[in-house]
């Protein structure tokens, strides 16, 4: 007999197993988290709390981001059947992300088209957050964390002020995180089913096609799958997963190939150029060097919350160091490795570090922090404990644990309370709403008006009757998209307004047409004050009439 499994020791040849449900085998049913009532109640309770805090005031805080506008506008273009973007799709990111946003926002946008603007549509991100939070809980249980630690991971992930700020925003990264968590959950499937691992490969591919940066997480996923597969079926499970991932991933270049846009050529965009652009983005400096862009990004994260990023990193370190002795550390090898990889990538000497980079690390930071806590709890309460342990030692252990819990609570709760209170009360988007209202009511014939506007406000203008694309113009397209610049033969003179939001003012330095438009205009309305103000600037009189004839083609 070549058998190495305990199952063969039973004296039957169970080729026929009518009673066992498909894919579930009795010895492992106990590990399944969905079976337990306590799990269900805990998970549901935490989910409600997370959704309340994340959902309350979601449209008004944080400040609308340009990227949110970009993705939502492209999702809108998908819904309208205008292709993958209302400007030429140039392979900046794989399109799966905003195709999913288009699906998510389909129903509300159908009920009331004017809802399809960044603020209101943020609420659809609650669905994404909710699924991610539940998957994180399931994953924690599947990685054999105790129930309380799984709940802790969910809380850390869902209620950290940093998470709340980032998960509220319509970022592709949030959707990619959901897919990644699904992939990890399937990889850690307790039944070790071949098709679960295959599904993990599919989910991983979906994650990468949603946000390409997820590529770096794949090795950690592979490790997780390796650890959770059985020796006898491993080669099939892992090859299946890799094949699934690669095949689905290939769909993207295949798509480019079918459109004839795989390689650069005259007169069209190409996947190749898109990739080289992303790879050659100017670095933002070393993350630990004062004054660099990356340093600023890191501190913007730490401004919202230090506990999750710093604690998570510490947790990952602890788990990686204690890998040889700690069961928890071995169980959490995959997530700890994910955190390590993401940290190393962030530490590149002169890499490009976008603000949303930390999003993909959040669930894993939460998981390893919870795992580290579980490890410490185990060490305090159980390590070297014997049956005959004296009562005072046991009391000492419990006392120490209670003291640690109190200390942690005293440190975390006030900080998070402040952060979360801001998130549910502050209104950061009043200037945007006011600017949108002004453009809706004060401009007489929006159809014939050409406005440079940042992506976050663009959909507002489209709903107000401005022509999408050449009437309401993403400001940087006025310099970068040949399809737009050719309608602006006289440069800034062919425009009517510039909505100078902080983003527009910042990027104008590198965009001559936008800079000229700002230079040759005067503010007609200003909302907010200081750096964050939004100015609506009319292009100087004397040119507008001619501009209009030029613009209306």
């Amino acid at each position: 007999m070549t058998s190495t499994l305990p199952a063969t020791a039973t004296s039957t040849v169970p080729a026929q197993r009518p009673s066992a449900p498909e894919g579930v085998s009795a010895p492992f049913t106990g590990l399944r988290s969905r079976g337990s009532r306590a799990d269900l109640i805990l998970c549901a309770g935490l989910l409600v709390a997370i959704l309340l805090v994340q959902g309350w005031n979601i449209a008004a805080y944080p400040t609308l981001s340009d990227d949110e506008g970009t993705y939502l506008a492209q999702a809108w273009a998908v819904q309208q059947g205008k292709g993958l973007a209302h400007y030429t799709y140039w392979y900046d990111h794989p399109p799966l992300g905003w195709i999913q946003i288009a699906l998510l926002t389909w129903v509300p946008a159908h009920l009331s088209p004017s809802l399809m603007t960044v603020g209101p549509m943020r609420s659809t991100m609650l669905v994404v957050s909710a699924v991610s939070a539940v998957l994180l809980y399931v994953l924690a249980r599947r990685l054999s964390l105790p129930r309380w630690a799984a709940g802790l991971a969910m809380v850390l992930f869902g209620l950290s002020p940093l998470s709340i700020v980032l998960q509220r925003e319509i970022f592709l990264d949030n959707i990619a995180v959901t897919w990644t968590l699904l992939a990890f959950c399937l990889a850690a499937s307790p039944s070790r089913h071949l098709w679960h691992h295959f599904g993990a490969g599919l989910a991983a591919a979906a994650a990468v096609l949603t946000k390409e940066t997820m590529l770096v997480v794949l090795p950690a996923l592979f490790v997780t799958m390796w650890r959770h597969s059985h020796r006898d079926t491993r080669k099939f499970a892992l090859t299946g997963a890799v094949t699934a991932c690669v095949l689905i991933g290939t769909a993207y270049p295949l798509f480019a190939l079918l459109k004839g846009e795989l390689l650069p050529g005259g007169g069209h965009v190409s996947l190749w150029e898109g990739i080289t652009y992303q790879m050659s983005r100017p670095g933002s400096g070393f993350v630990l060097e004062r004054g660099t862009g990356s340093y600023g990004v890191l501190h913007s994260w730490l401004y919202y919350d230090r506990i999750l990023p710093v604690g998570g990193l510490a947790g990952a370190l602890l788990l990686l160091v204690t890998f040889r002795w700690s069961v928890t550390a071995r169980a959490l090898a995959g997530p700890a490795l994910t955190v390590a990889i993401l940290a190393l990538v962030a530490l590149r000497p002169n890499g490009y570090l976008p603000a949303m980079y930390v999003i993909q690390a959040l669930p894993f930071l939460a998981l390893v922090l919870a795992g580290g806590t579980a490890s410490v709890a185990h060490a305090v309460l159980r390590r070297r404990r014997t049956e005959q342990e004296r009562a005072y030692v046991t009391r000492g252990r419990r006392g120490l644990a209670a003291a640690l819990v109190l200390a942690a609570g005293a440190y975390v709760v006030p900080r998070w309370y402040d952060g979360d209170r801001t998130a549910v009360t502050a209104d950061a988007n009043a200037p945007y709403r006011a600017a949108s209202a002004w453009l809706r009511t004060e401009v007489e014939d929006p159809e014939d008006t050409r406005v440079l506007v940042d992506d976050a406000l663009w959909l507002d203008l489209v709903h107000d009757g401005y022509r999408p694309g050449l009437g309401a113009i993403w400001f940087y397209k006025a310099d970068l998209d040949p399809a737009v610049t050719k309608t602006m033969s006289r440069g800034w003179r062919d425009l009517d307004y510039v909505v100078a939001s902080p983003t527009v003012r910042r990027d104008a330095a590198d965009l001559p047409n936008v800079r000229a438009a700002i230079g040759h205009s005067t503010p007609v309305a200003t909302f907010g004050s200081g750096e964050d103000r939004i100015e609506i600037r009319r292009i100087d009189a004397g040119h507008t009439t001619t501009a209009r004839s030029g613009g209306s083609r």
Partner: protein
Amino acid sequence: MAAFTLWWQMHAWRTPEVLASTRFASPDGGGGLSFSLLLPARHEQAVLDHTIRRLLESSHTDFEIIVIVGHDDPETAEVARSAEARDPRVRVVVDHHERKNKPKAMNTALSHCRGDVVGVFDAEDQVHPELLAHVDQAFRTTGADVVQGGVQLINFHSSWYSLRNCLEYFFWFRSRLHLHAQKGFIPLGGNTVFVRTDVLREAEGWDPACLAEDCDLGVRLSSVGKKVVVAYDSDMVTKEETPGSLMSLLKQRTRWNQGFLQVYRKRDWKQLPTMGQRLLARYTLMTPYLQAVSGVIIPLDVAVALFLDVPVGIAFVTFLPAVTALVTFVFELVGLHDFGKQYGLRVRTVHYLKLVAGGPFYQVLLAGAAVRAVWREQRGHDDWELTSHVGAHLTEATREDVAA
């Protein structure tokens, strides 16, 4: 459709528990059943003696070997008689049918069987000495009416098609048959199959007119709810060799396909109780034809997507079958690796390359056999094909003996 095949092909590896359950359980030592082992032999004097000797080495205590020879085949009969003289457990039965085939021969012997269980082997089979004890155990512990053991072609290095042929057997016996047993619809294999004698007599033996009498028997038994258990152990499979030439492989495959078609048309499977089982039966018996069609359609699809000017969406859809085919390909490569590991055979890089390169050609072969089978069945050429197959055995008998 390719997705279904893939799903089923990978059945045994779904979870470690499923994989473990596909193996024989260890015998507990207590023997119980007696076996009658049928060994139809025709112009197989070169290998028959070796096979009988191996069978006699079996560790089981209670069995008889019934060698079935034709009245017109004195060479084989002589080998059989000498074995009969040597060992009382060997008996010879002579088949007097004018037109000979395997089911007729076995039906002839069925009335001579004295054991509780009838087992079937081919004259060139390499049978493991522990097999009978394990089968006995399987019968007693599961209450099965039929036990199907594994059969494995082993000479994967002989040629590009034998490589694929071996792998087909590997996936079929290692994995797919178990699924059939679980679902309660199973086309049995031609040998290493064991049936309780009373069940077999009740079913009136094998269908002498059917080209795939083994498949037919399985379908008839499972259709009336008999319990079939499949067990596979790489140590204990019956080892065989691929047909000696591409032409004989084509003929063998044509015969099987035609047999499947006959079984399909006999409609015994219609008695299966559930809709799912009937669908599985319909699908399984039709597989050769679907295979033939898909072999042609997939390359066509890819060509359409790449070279014709079709919308991107449609082009994507046309790629879907190619995707499942690719996944199958990859699993075949892993299967080949596993096959090498299980049998302690050295699989070299060149074999993997051959497997990939041979894929399309093997599809053509399968498609050819399918078309040929349909054509013959339409023309009512079933008799001719039978004699032709028996003739093919002549060439089989002359090929080299299987290494022990």
